[in-house]
């Protein structure tokens, strides 16, 4: 397959502004976007910078904007996205660019840390002998939210995160629900307090971009709506 890669290049030591560069490639019909990037790095410009690791959609390193939509480049076939023989590859939006296609994820992680992304069991109760059990139904309900690989695709797609660096964003909020909705967790109220903010759940305008682009089938919008519901119950003194 003949395909032209248009890549948004930016080297902070040389360029004042990012600019597009084109690379005509010949690739296998079944090739994924990442194959093209690797070929460019190997044969055209070894300075091209991007993150990639596992190549099987589990490490979450290689999310980028391909033709104006967030994709894991390792699991997106060219045939899915190519238009008029061209594929436009840009770094994730809403995050500062370090170089070329690599972005600085620090603010993403900072928000991730802010929502206490770990289970807090009830210390007052004796620890179970084997494991903390939960009902099958509850586990299945939460499963998708545990499936997040923190690639940042949702964060990049969110128009709210675009204008507010302090907005917690879909990934952190979905993770907050993954624990706030967990029957084994004892810190639900505290979690709900953290997310109940103008920079948290109340800022989500249900645009659904995050749900649209998630490569792992997580529905951050759904999670945020559950958090809103729980918070309303908490604020009105109903059991949560």
């Amino acid at each position, binding site marked *: 397959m003949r395909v032209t890669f248009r890549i948004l290049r930016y080297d902070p030591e040389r360029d004042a502004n990012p600019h597009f560069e084109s690379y005509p490639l010949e690739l296998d019909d079944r090739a994924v976007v990442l194959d093209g990037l690797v070929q460019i790095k190997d044969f055209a410009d070894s300075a091209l910078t991007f993150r990639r690791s596992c190549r099987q959609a589990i490490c979450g390193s290689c999310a980028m904007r391909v033709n104006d939509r967030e994709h894991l480049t390792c699991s997106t076939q060219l045939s899915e996205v190519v238009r008029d023989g061209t594929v436009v590859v840009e770094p994730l939006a809403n995050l500062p660019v370090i170089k070329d296609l690599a972005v600085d994820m620090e603010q993403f992680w*900072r928000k991730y840390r*802010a929502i206490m992304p770990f289970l807090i069991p009830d210390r007052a109760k004796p620890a179970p002998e084997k494991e903390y059990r939960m009902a099958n139904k509850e586990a299945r309900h939460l499963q998708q939210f545990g499936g997040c690989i923190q690639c940042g695709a949702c964060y990049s797609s969110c128009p709210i995160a675009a204008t*507010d660096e*302090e907005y917690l964003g879909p990934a952190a909020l979905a993770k907050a629900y993954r624990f706030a909705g967990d029957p084994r967790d004892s810190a639900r109220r505290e979690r709900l307090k953290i997310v109940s*903010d*103008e*920079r948290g759940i*109340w*800022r989500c305008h249900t645009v659904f971009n995050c749900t649209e682009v998630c490569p792992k089938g997580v529905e951050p919008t759904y999670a945020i709506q559950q958090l809103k519901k729980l918070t309303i119950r908490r*604020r009105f003194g109903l059991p949560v």
Partner: protein
Amino acid sequence: MAAIMRPGEAPMQTARESVSFWPWVLQRISGLFLVVLMGIHIGINHFGNLGKASDTRDLIIFNDVAFRLQQGFWWAVDVALLTFVVYHGLNGIRNIALDLGVRGTGTKVTTGLLWLLGIATWGFGIAALIAFRKYA
């Protein structure tokens, strides 16, 4: 237990919870009321005379409006409509301002100006409604 923070890291900026919670709730409540009240308002005030109107000028008659506003129910409908619509509209503008990047002091100034504008608009609207009762 709290958020994990790196040494020297500033905590996430947060506002008082009520500042973000109540506007959100009121936006929904006012929106729901508006759907009902606006339906009544448009149906009665603007289309009530549609059947017998032969000209657009027959649609709204001063004395009809004035007569309705003598009655407690219609007075309450219009006052409620005015209150909810002004709140809903201006809070919507505030939401847009936040999403356009208004921050910190700017948020307070924006909120304050919108409250002033809202109170002035509401006052003028009430004066207009009272006028109907007076001239009838």
